[in-house]
């Protein structure tokens, strides 16, 4: 069966520091992968999606970037974090029938 994992689960980083959140999917090949952010009171916002290795589409302009160095690996990064980057980040993949399945999430607090 397919599984998705992301880490770290929680992260406290100072303003201006770099960020790297990693996500891997197992049990499927060439999945569509997504990064969402859930900020308080704002619901879920799609940040990036990827349909294949090296292919990244950004949905909103921001201080973050994404990369897909391998088929089942999706990384969310920042060179310099801002306070406004704090939130709950979710990696996800698309299964059959357009159903999206989510990872456990990563809490990022920028201080």
């Amino acid at each position, binding site marked *: 069966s397919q599984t998705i994992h992301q880490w770290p689960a929680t992260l406290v980083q100072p303003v201006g520091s770099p960020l790297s959140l990693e996500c891997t999917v197992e049990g499927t090949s060439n999945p*569509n992968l997504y990064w969402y952010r859930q900020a308080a*009171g704002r619901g879920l916002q799609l940040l990036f999606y990827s349909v294949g290795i090296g292919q990244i589409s950004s949905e909103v302009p921001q201080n973050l970037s994404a990369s897909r160095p391998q088929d089942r690996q999706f990384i969310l990064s920042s060179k310099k974090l801002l306070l406004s980057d704090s939130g709950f980040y979710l990696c996800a993949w698309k299964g059959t029938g357009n*159903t*999206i399945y989510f990872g456990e*999430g990563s809490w990022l607090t920028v201080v």
Partner: protein
Amino acid sequence: AQSVSQHNHHVILSEAASLELGCNYSYGGTVNLFWYVQYPGQHLQLLLKYFSGDPLVKGIKGFEAEFIKSKFSFNLRKPSVQWSDTAEYFCAVTVPGGSQGNLIFGKGTKLSVKP
């Protein structure tokens, strides 16, 4: 652009009360509709989904949702809630064949069930 509206930010109910969470979407064509649930400290899980066919969809844990095309709605219901239903609920829509099947989410509704 498509959007999803969830009418209630926070709903507080007593156990055994009936639940209905509203969800409306803005898109005139065919859509796929979803409800996701996030229990405290857990990841988002799929509760139920509608693609086509019977507009009354049954999901896990006694939840159901009804797709009413004329009202652009997909409300979530449960006849009798339990304390364990305390969670945040997200309605979502995707357009078949749309941009990579990306989900558009509502802002979520927090449900608190008092024992």
